[in-house]
């Protein structure tokens, strides 16, 4: 093992933040309209949905797994939520509860197959990805389900969920507050609780953890349920934001979430990761999206540049490991 010089160590230890700072400065100089309070404030809001999924994804990846289903679960939940509201004149909180249960159930299924039948997480969640997307399209009959039932629109609590999604009260959008609360909660869960310790240990060495009296099956099951639950929360919020349940919501979001984890230094081998760093990883990607758009780049270019930056961030991480 070679010892790195002090400056080199500083650079690699804080690689992501340095890249972030550089990207920020670059856009501030080159992209008109990037460096305005309004635009900067928009970045966490735009990234909030992906961040919510990425926090749960971080835990899944730390156990050594992966979850490809969450993007589809967002759509599935949004459709279910809109359907419940349209078909049945139930109170909105009940509709939320129903949708969250439906979404989380998909995670329970995935966890069950992984734990009980030893289906590799990649396969189990790949299957759930297509199943949930298919169900969403089936229930929505391949179109959007609009939440425009006048009877419901009059409910004040419906207005409330709309507010949760977009309204400003103290200058910070509720959505961002909710996102930060989830990040802090799960971050502490991972770092300060027994469950969190077990999550890390399971990913580090499943056999040794099992032989230390930990039910790794329970741990693995739980992380998929938590992740699906977060995807369901996002699904409900998407539906309330756009006033419809669209079966095409959340396409490729699982990949954005995984990219955020990886840029934040989460190891796909398991055993290593940090939810707060995932937050910054997602913000970096969000900043790229925002800044490149402000520069007037085409969406194709944005894809390509994002890919290169993700690769670069991970290479810095690998160099550090050596």
């Amino acid at each position, binding site marked *: 093992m070679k010892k790195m010089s002090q400056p080199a160590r500083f650079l690699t230890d804080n690689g992501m933040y340095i890249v972030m700072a550089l990207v920020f400065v670059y856009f501030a100089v080159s992209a008109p309209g990037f460096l305005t309070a309004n635009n900067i404030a928009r970045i966490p809001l735009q990234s909030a949905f992906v961040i919510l999924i990425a926090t749960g994804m971080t835990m899944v990846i730390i156990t050594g797994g992966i979850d490809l289903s969450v993007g589809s679960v967002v759509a599935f939940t949004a459709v279910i939520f809109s359907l419940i509201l349209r078909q049945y004149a139930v109170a909105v909180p009940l509709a939320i509860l129903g949708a969250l249960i439906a979404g989380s159930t998909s995670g329970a299924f995935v966890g069950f197959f992984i734990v009980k039948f030893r289906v590799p997480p990649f396969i189990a969640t790949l299957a759930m990805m297509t199943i949930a997307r298919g169900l969403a399209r089936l229930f929505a009959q391949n179109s959007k389900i609009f939440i425009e039932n006048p009877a419901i629109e009059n409910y004040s609590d419906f207005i409330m969920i709309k507010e949760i999604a977009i309204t400003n009260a103290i200058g910070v959008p509720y959505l961002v507050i909710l996102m930060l609360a989830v990040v802090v909660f799960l971050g502490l869960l991972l770092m300060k*609780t*027994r469950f969190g*310790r077990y999550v890390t240990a399971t990913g580090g060495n499943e056999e040794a953890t*099992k*032989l*230390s*009296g930990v039910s790794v099956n329970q741990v693995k099951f739980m992380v998929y349920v938590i992740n699906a639950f977060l995807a369901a929360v996002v699904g409900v919020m998407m539906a309330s934001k756009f006033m419809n349940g669209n079966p095409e919501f959340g396409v490729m979001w699982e990949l954005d979430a995984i990219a955020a984890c990886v840029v934040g230094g989460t190891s796909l081998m398991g055993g290593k990761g940090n939810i707060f760093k995932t937050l910054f990883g997602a913000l970096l990607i969000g900043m790229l999206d925002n800044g490149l758009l402000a520069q007037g780049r085409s969406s194709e270019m944005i894809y390509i540049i994002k890919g290169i930056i993700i690769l670069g961030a991970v290479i810095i991480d690998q160099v550090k490991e050596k």
Partner: protein
Amino acid sequence: MSGSNDIALEMRGIVKEFPGVKALKNVTFSCRRGEVHGLVGENGAGKSTLMKVLSGVHPYPTYEGDIFIKGERARFSGAREAERAGVAIIHQELNLISELTVAGNMFLGREPSVSPFGIINTRKMNADALKYLSSFNIKIDPGAIVKDLSVGVRQMVEIAKALSVNADVLALDEPTSALTETEVESLFKTVRDLKEKDVTMIYISHKLDEIFAICDRVTVLRDGETVGTYDIGELDRDKLVALMVGRDLTNLYPERKSNPGAEALRVSDFSVSHPFLPGEKVVSGASFSARHGEALGISGLMGSGRSELVTALFGAFPKETSGDVFIDGRKVRMRSPLEAIRNGIGLVTEDRKRFGLVLIMSVGENITLACMRALSKLQWVAAKKERAVIEEYSKELNIKAASSRVAVNTLSGGNQQKVVMAKWLANSPGILILDEPTRGVDVGARFEIYQIVNKLVESGVCVIMVSSELQEVLGMCDRVLVMCEGKITGEFTREEATQEKIMSCATGTMSRSGADAQK
């Protein structure tokens, strides 16, 4: 007579240091061409390290000293280069790919291909393999899949593979540890055939009978130093043991008062079925008991079922296990390690890297992994309490680490093992099972581990110690059980146990009734 042509290999003044340990202090070692040279010494004496230096696993500037192969100075930068110079080592853990054929393994990375597209010419490869195999009288079908072969045959494949890259210095590291008697016979035959063909062989073994049966000369290592090289004719067993140990056994194994108390564990008709082969049993009908304040040894060859027995006792294979277990006279069922832990059992597993430690977690996190429940309230981990536990056991076991926050994989083998032990001591177990507790542990740390074990036994813990080292079992345990092919084939008190008696029970040459008659 000793022209440089006759010296196949020479190692002079080899020094190899690991963080915290000097594994080789000053080793001199040389082999004549075409001889079988025994390399003996206790575990931790430095045999494996020396072989790793020789075979380039520890590459050139990481050690001090000179190596000459056939008179030429060698400075290997890796195992590849050593292989090219004709030095090959057959490790205890075999390095074959189990899904490939024999020939596929032998020619891995240098397969003959038919076309520029790189399609492997299987027929030619098999024919070439057969040529090598038959020239050394090894009768194996080159097309056989390795996973279908027994350990002994696989070893032959390894040897043939080494020879096919033109190795003429071959080091065999504990080649017979997992072989049946007939397999040992055919290995010996191969060794003799190779000797005829002028292949130089280094033979590492704990089994002194084998050394006397097959070796021309012997080099003895002790605590990282060469004691000397001897013609086999000038040695007998006792002399060799004395050279290896170099001091009284009482020095090696610290003294302890034996004062067994009440029965801690009783196992009756305990069986473990094979996880993949229905009908096969890896442990069958084992019955024994162990008491508080007693160290019970379990001896036996690799594959005799000893590890399976203790791992199953720990609740790791609930579906495969049958039989009754009583703890402190109370019948218990252990369907998971958690239940075993709740019943006061701890298990220091055989392979600490695979089953004992989460290598990328910190020393502290590993120590508290099994007692998290006691250290947390409503999931929240009590950081202060945890730190106190970590400090207590790091100190008690004298764990040498820069801090308890460093990853456990930065520690030496001995200190890693102490971390595993700390993990279980933090649970204050009534019964502590140690499966090969000193494997890969240097001499100093070994002694410390023995002292810890003795302290536990004196404080009334029931210690069950599985070990393939007879001396360790004899030096540490009040009573010894011997296993062979899944059955308990012998039981001896410390006074009646000898290496010979244990070995004959372990190899199945003495039946259980025979062992009983010894009493």
